[in-house]
């Protein structure tokens, strides 16, 4: 169930990401929804889920992006594993820690991604910090929002059901 949920989340993130591909700042995409899904999986289910989600999501993203397949997978695997470990070590149930986790994960991902491409293309390493920070912020906001939605989802349904039952008793 958990695996299926992660896979669905990844597929949805990928679908959205491909439609948002034109939304770029410089040469870096302003948001990376697949990365958000990976970090979410890592924070929610631990390092194993994080690294597997990162591997699958990264490979799929690489395959669709047309670059060197494996660079994104490697980076997202690393992020999923590291964030999963950090999430297991620290309490990240609050919004701020989650925000920090998304920011950290995005920066780690970009660092690794750019370093790998510099290695592969035999060029000097350069980091687009401004675009990275923007993407990190956007990712963090989306990730935190996603956490809120998902966590609030079941309770919201229960509350609505409960409210509906109260109204029925009042009327009848």
């Amino acid at each position, binding site marked *: 169930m958990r695996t299926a949920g992660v896979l669905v989340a990844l597929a949805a993130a990928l679908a959205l990401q491909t439609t948002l591909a034109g939304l770029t700042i410089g040469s870096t995409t302003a948001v990376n929804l697949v990365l958000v899904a990976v970090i979410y999986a890592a924070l929610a289910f631990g*390092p194993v889920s994080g*690294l597997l989600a990162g591997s699958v999501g990264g490979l799929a993203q690489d395959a669709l992006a047309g670059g*060197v*397949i*494996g*660079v994104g997978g490697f980076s997202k695997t690393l992020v999923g*594993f590291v964030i999963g470990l950090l999430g297991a070590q620290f309490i990240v149930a609050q919004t701020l820690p989650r925000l920090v986790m998304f920011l950290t994960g995005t920066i780690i991902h970009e660092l690794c991604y750019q370093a790998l491409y510099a290695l592969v293309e035999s060029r000097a390493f350069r980091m687009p910090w401004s675009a990275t920070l923007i993407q990190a912020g956007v990712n963090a906001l989306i990730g935190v929002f996603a956490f809120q939605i998902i966590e609030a989802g079941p309770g919201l349904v229960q509350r609505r059901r409960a409210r509906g039952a109260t109204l029925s008793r009042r009327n009848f």
Partner: protein
Amino acid sequence: MLEIPPRAPYRQRTGYLFLAVMVGHLILISAQVQSKAGVPVLEGVTFGVFSRIQTGVSGAFHGVTGTWSNYVALRGVRAENETLRQRLGDLEVRLQEQRALAGRAAQLESLLQLRESTTLPTLSAQVIAGNPNPGLLTVTIDRGSSDGVQPDMAVIAPKGVVGRVIGPVAGHASRVQLIIDRNAAIGAISERTRAGGMVVGVEGDPPLRMDLVSNLADIVVGDVIVASGVDGIFPKGFVIGTVERSERGKALYRDLTIRPAVGFSSLEEVLVVLVPARGAVPEEAPKPREAAK
């Protein structure tokens, strides 16, 4: 009771999984990235690693086969070695025979050339025996009076003068006194300066000495000494040898030693010059009146 082996801790398994996935990604990246040599990194690394493995496997294989062929498979080698050694000995004997035949053919060839180059009537002969008496250096040849050989006929070889026929001469054999015999003598001159003298055999090395050459004569080491022909036996101009030592003598004559041109230790084929010595008369039975005188 069956004991279940303890499983690796969760964190450790996670680490292994992480490593495996990362390595998988690296391999995937390497397969797509080309090195500076134009070969995919994965291919290059794989080839490099596999070549090491191949080297190791090949070394091990050669070690095993070498052990097998050098030790295990050598059980019958001793007998084979013995057979081969015997065969090698036979072949060496045959080789020596062939070499001797070749040398003999070369000798015959040079003898034939000498025979064609000289205008003198000659008769080829083969040395069939050496000298049984150490005091006399003679050899026996397979030509005799029936072939026209007479005493005091000169015997020559391609390289130079050998000696002279000495009596008695048999029908199909004759004896030849070598010029290195201590009783032999031959009129000689220096080919370069024409300084004359007499070459005699001596016991020593070299076995020839040239006498009766004036101290004033110009003869140096390396000069070729040839027959002068004054003795009436040896044809003029045939090589006797070369001067090995030339020193001023105490008396009137120089001390000269000559290295013979002919190798007497390997004398096999010779030519008999069928020209009777000048002044020599056929051996006949002395007439009673002459005998009485």
